[in-house]
């Protein structure tokens, strides 16, 4: 039995975080603990992905207590796929951070590594847990770590931004807990598979209220319009690696939770219009916001918001095709968005400003960086043959297959968003990599660990390239994951066992 | 015999509980009615403390022995912690002017603290002058 492997992605980072905190005096030991743990966990997750795809969902009853009373960790195709990509990106970001000296130097030495490890543990737990309350704990772990990371060494401007982030997240956490309280009161269980049996039996009104409440809760974390305002005001201010990891992972965890709960607890048979509307709003408001920005990081943040709309779109269709698209898009987006924030960090480090107008007056950033940016930006804009195109194509096909005026209108919005993404990316490209003057003297100092940072960035970009290159197997995997999501019984049987034995 | 003891204990408990509650209530009344912080502290904290003590003893009479021990332990801790807080709060209250001076019939501390040239600031704190 290999089920125990499931605990590793959660427990190892927690253990390492504890040790990392205990050995706070040694930066080298902290770095080793961080990279070593993430590498090991990444390897374990890859194994889990292969196993989950071959054998169906792996389930670990933590502590040996059977579901629904005990907490189950469930590794199915969706969760392991996202886990692998998330871990790969977080490893790259960690290397970047070490290179940048975020891990030590200008920031206080102790906090970064343990907080980062706990963030990863939270993300891993969020993907793997099969229990609603445990999901809350995972979110809290992830968020608490992110509060610490986003506020590390915060000065004048960032403290305000950190506050916006922290308080909005806190409110969403409280709403989440409220929802859990209501759900437990109504059903008497918090095990997701068990809830999959019990929630559909609830009166329709209560069911829709609970569904919408969870949607809002996760919508805040995923930055769905109109719950997104906090994101562009907060993420851009943090140091690049922190922004990158938060932007890439946290919104995706929110989205994952949305997909997981909506498909498992609130099965539907037709396109869900409220979500469709939210998707359209998110796409357009986000990208229009990006067009209005003058700051590279804020621009990227709005793009991030906008592209959440693509993933919502797939979910709102409630078809295999749509969910396949969502899965592919999430995988692609984790890599692309992280890479872009890292590149932005390097560009800002190179030229000493994040303002487009000022960037345009400073010397073009180096060609290697331009190439990396091109790959990531074009991928995000969905230009073939990069990963974004593959994901977008899956969504387009699902949308066209579904048909209907509303869906087609949304498709148009999605394509417009793609175009405007390209437009804003070209604008960044113009300012950062084409236009130029002198490098400002202030920024001319040697950038420490530049090689590590570039390597890490290239790694993040390559993850995206790998997604495109492996689009064939990945798309099939995504499709299988989508089938599992809609089937529900695969997941439920893996957790709870034979349906005959668990009764109505 | 055993039943009689039982009944007596029950009765004692009942009386103690009720008395305790009444003292608590009276403390509450004092807390609302008294004019300044220290008098309120005097009234409320002490009456409350007593009330709690009575209730604890009352409870101790009814519960199994290990718990009775714990209840008495609580009473002991209550007895040694409450006065300390009272003294700290009282000291600060006096220092921060939370004592209504005009309600005092005597204030020997003020006399002691008065500047040396003041008429009734006796050396060695022996002054007995009356305040207003």
């Amino acid at each position, binding site marked *: 039995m290999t089920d125990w492997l499931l605990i590793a992605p959660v427990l190892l980072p927690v253990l390492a975080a504890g040790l990392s905190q205990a050995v706070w005096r040694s930066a080298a030991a902290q770095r080793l603990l961080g990279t070593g743990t993430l590498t090991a966990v990444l390897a374990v997750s890859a194994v889990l992905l292969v196993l989950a795809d071959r054998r169906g969902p792996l389930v670990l009853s933590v502590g040996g207590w059977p579901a629904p009373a005990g907490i189950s960790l469930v590794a199915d195709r969706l969760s392991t796929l996202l886990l692998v990509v998330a871990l790969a990106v977080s490893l790259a970001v960690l290397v970047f951070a070490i290179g940048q000296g975020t891990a030590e130097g200008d920031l206080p030495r102790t906090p970064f590594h343990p907080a980062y490890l706990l963030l990863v543990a939270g993300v891993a737990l969020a993907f793997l847990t099969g229990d609603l309350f445990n999901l809350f704990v995972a979110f809290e772990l992830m968020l608490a770590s992110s509060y610490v990371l986003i506020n590390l060494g915060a000065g004048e401007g960032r403290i305000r931004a950190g506050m916006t982030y922290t308080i909005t997240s806190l409110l969403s956490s409280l709403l989440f807990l409220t929802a859990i309280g209501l759900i437990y009161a109504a059903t008497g269980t918090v095990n997701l598979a068990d809830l999959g049996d019990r929630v559909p039996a609830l009166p329709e009104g209560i069911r829709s209220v609970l569904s919408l409440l969870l949607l809002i809760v996760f919508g805040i974390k995923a930055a769905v319009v109109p719950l997104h305002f906090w994101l562009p005001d907060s993420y851009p201010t943090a140091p690049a690696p922190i922004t990158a990891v938060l932007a890439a992972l946290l919104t995706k965890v929110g989205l994952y939770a949305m997909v997981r709960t909506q498909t498992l607890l609130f099965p539907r048979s037709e396109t869900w219009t409220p979500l469709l509307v939210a998707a359209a709003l998110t796409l357009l408001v986000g990208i229009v916001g990006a067009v209005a920005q003058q700051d590279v990081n804020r621009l990227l943040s709005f793009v991030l918001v906008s592209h959440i709309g693509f993933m919502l779109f797939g979910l709102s269709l409630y078809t295999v095709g749509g969910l396949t698209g969502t899965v592919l898009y999430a995988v692609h987006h984790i890599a692309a968005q992280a890479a872009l924030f890292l590149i932005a960090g390097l560009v800002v480090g190179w030229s000493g400003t994040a303002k487009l107008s000022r960037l345009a007056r400073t010397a073009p950033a180096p060609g290697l960086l331009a190439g990396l940016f091109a790959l990531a930006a074009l991928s995000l804009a969905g230009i073939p043959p990069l990963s974004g195109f593959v994901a977008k194509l899956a969504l387009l096909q699902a949308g066209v297959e579904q048909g209907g005026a509303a869906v087609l209108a949304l498709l148009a919005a999605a394509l417009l968003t793609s175009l405007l993404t390209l437009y804003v990316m070209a604008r960044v490209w113009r300012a950062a990599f084409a236009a130029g003057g002198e490098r400002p003297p202030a920024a001319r100092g040697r950038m420490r660990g530049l090689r590590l940072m570039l390597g890490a960035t290239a790694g993040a970009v390559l993850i995206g390239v790998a997604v495109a290159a492996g689009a064939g197997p990945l798309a099939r995997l995504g499709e299988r994951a989508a089938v599992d999501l809609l089937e529900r019984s695969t997941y439920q049987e893996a957790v709870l066992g034979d349906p005959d034995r668990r009764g109505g | 015999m055993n039943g009689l003891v039982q009944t007596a204990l029950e009765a004692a408990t009942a009386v103690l509980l009720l008395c305790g509650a009444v003292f608590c209530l009276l403390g509450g009344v004092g807390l609302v009615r008294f004019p300044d912080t220290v008098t309120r502290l005097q009234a409320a904290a002490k009456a409350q403390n007593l009330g709690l003590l009575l209730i604890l003893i009352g409870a101790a009479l009814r519960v199994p*022995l290990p718990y009775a021990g714990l209840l008495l332990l609580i009473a002991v801790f209550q007895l040694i912690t409450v006065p300390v807080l009272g003294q700290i709060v009282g000291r600060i209250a006096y220092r921060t002017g939370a004592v209504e001076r005009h309600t005092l019939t005597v204030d020997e501390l003020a006399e002691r603290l008065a500047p040396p040239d003041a008429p009734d600031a006796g050396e060695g704190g022996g002054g007995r002058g009356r305040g207003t």
Partner: protein
Amino acid sequence: MSPADEQAHGTAGTPGARGGPPRRTSRQWPLALWLWVLWIVLWGSVSPVVLVGGAVVALLVVVLFPLPSIARRARLHPLWLLMLPAHLLVGLVGSAVAVALEAVRRGPRVRAAVLEVPLRSESDLMIAATANMASLTPGTLVLEIDRDRRRLYVHALPARDAREVDRRRGEVATAERWVVRTIGPAEMRKDPNRRERGYGGEGERR
């Protein structure tokens, strides 16, 4: 029963590593004993596991969290200690009733006084115990302790006239008497007017 009986004897020593005197854990057995008793009371059981575990826990706490030694050791007088609760309860009830009546009848127009009460006691512990006792009773509350000159400044209630003021002063004196009876040194217990013997070159300070 009261933890007040656990003071170790020893002498004030040279400053230790953190500016305090050396921690002689070997002299802290009364504390360890108290902690052991506390453990047993908490568990409410005298099974071997509890007894052994309690000893381990008590020793552990004493060794891991050492406290400086105290020069003077309290002498406990069990008989008076046993009588103390009864006295306390009676005194408490009486004065509590008085204060409560004051609260109900006069409320905002209550008259109080701040009194100076000289003490016979000399040691920290005795003064503290007296202040504690005095503050326990409704009607008197210690505001300031002039440690050097051994005086308590007591807020007294009700104190409408000289008679009541004297009664309150008497209450504090009674409190001290009870403290002396329970934990005081022999010479004080015998002579109600005798002051506690000074020691350690600590004179009066202003």
